[in-house]
């Protein structure tokens, strides 16, 4: 869907999306990374489980929600990547571990 103009080099970090490693650049948002990786949807809705992906990239649409380091419903467009970060796509109504 999207690609970077250049490969991240000395500012490169590795994040994990549903367990799969992805290269990212320090300073970019998790949402930007999600838009580069397959599958191209990043969550399904709690109402009808429809597939969604980031839309506004500026924090006013809440489509980019994902589970980041165990915390659900995080706006990934407002979350800078960090080396080792674990990201999971959020499907349907968010569930809570007891």
């Amino acid at each position: 869907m999207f690609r970077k103009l250049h490969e991240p080099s000395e500012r490169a970090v590795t994040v994990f999306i549903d367990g799969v490693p992805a290269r990212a650049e320090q300073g970019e948002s998790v949402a930007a990374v999600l838009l580069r990786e397959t599958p191209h949807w990043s969550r399904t809705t709690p109402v009808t489980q429809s597939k969604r992906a980031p839309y506004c990239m500026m924090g006013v649409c809440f489509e980019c929600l994902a589970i980041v380091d165990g915390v659900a419903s995080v706006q990934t467009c407002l979350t800078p990547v960090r080396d080792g970060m674990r990201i999971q796509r959020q499907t349907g109504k968010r569930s809570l571990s007891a």
Partner: protein
Amino acid sequence: MTSVDLLIVGAGPAGMAAAIEARRHGVDVLVVDDQPEPGGQIWRSVETVAAAPRGALLGKAYQAGKSVAELFRASGAKYEPGTQVWQIEPGFRAFVTRNRQASTIQAKSIVLATGAQERPVPFPGWTLPGVLTVGAAQILLKTSGQIPDKPVWVAGSGPLPLLYMVQLLRAGGRIAGYLDTTPPGRGRATLPHLAKALGAAGDLLKGIAWLGMLRRAKVRIVKHVADIEAIGSERIEAVRYRTRNGQERTVPTEVLLVHEGVVPNIHATLALGCAVEWSESQDCYVPVLNGWGESSQSGIFLAGDGAGIAGAQAAVHRGTLAGLGVAMKLGRVSDRAAEEAARPVRQKLARELALRPFLDALYKPRPEVFAPKDATIVCRCEEVTAGDIRAMAAMGRPGPNQVKAFTRAGMGPCQGRQCGYTVTQILAAAEGRPAKDVGFYRVRPPLKPVTLGELASLEQQEKAS
């Protein structure tokens, strides 16, 4: 609990300018912003990117942000990025969350510089993965050096799509085509404003130059597009468009970028009880402000695109005036000295604003923007369709809050930011009354989603202080 003279919400052009000016008069300033770096939307990541290779392709208007950011950093204002403001009580007490911890800030005055958002324009399939706003694509270019990997279709109206497409071409991206939704005959509508607009001739010529560049690059431009539809099952696979003279085509695409203007962010403005008025020319609410940007609520100032869409330079001037206004209100500068300092700023602001009526007339949204088909999702969060809203409108003369209560439109996490205006317009059309009489959702705090744990932690914070 932190206590400051001035709390500025937003570290974009207006917020930074307000901080710089207020600091010049010794006002104690705290600036909070939900982004990790200053710059707002237009100057996103400008501190790191302006000097980077892609800084050049983003243009001079973008790079101008770097020096403002430097002045901001040197101003002595306290700055807390990654911070969300979710409530401001009279007095003022602001509630914020940072690093999953809630806290309160006491402030004598407030400058809201929360900018604008793209006008939400529902159309069939707009919720599919791969449909994004042009603004989103521009943010990806700025902060990630990221572009659509296949030739992209862009649909909409206004200067921003033109600018983005020029930046994209400079970066080596490819454009499959531009669906220009600007209706015909707009040239005539803009003539009354042309003379004034020529005062801001520089900007006017820029827009013309961008179009020229796109034409020279042989970008396919389809004019007078009336409707678009995104087609696909799990992501967008094609876009179908119809022009006003009836031409219909479906073209394959993986990404569709849309933009039909920007509107001020009014959530905080409404929640704080600041008076707003309906702008016929921009089809949105704008706050009612005095010459310093002070709202109807004493001590609350607005600056930047959140005060009225006018671009980065105007935002800087409005920010400066707000900073001066606050300093004056707090007695750090005499009224006379403030008026004198304000004069040249007001002149510069007036020149920037001279172009607005022209642009507003040229890019007034087409009527289809406010009349989505029944099956179109209007509330993205709760998946409420235009037909659902119209069905409610058939039962009496409901306002937006009644519709919200019974359809759940506006009850999702975005709190009506993406559906509010559309619901208002659908009700207006169904009830035969103007949008400004229909009103807007009652906006309730928290203005940003705060977690139960963060709110709970406030109790300890309050006990400790």
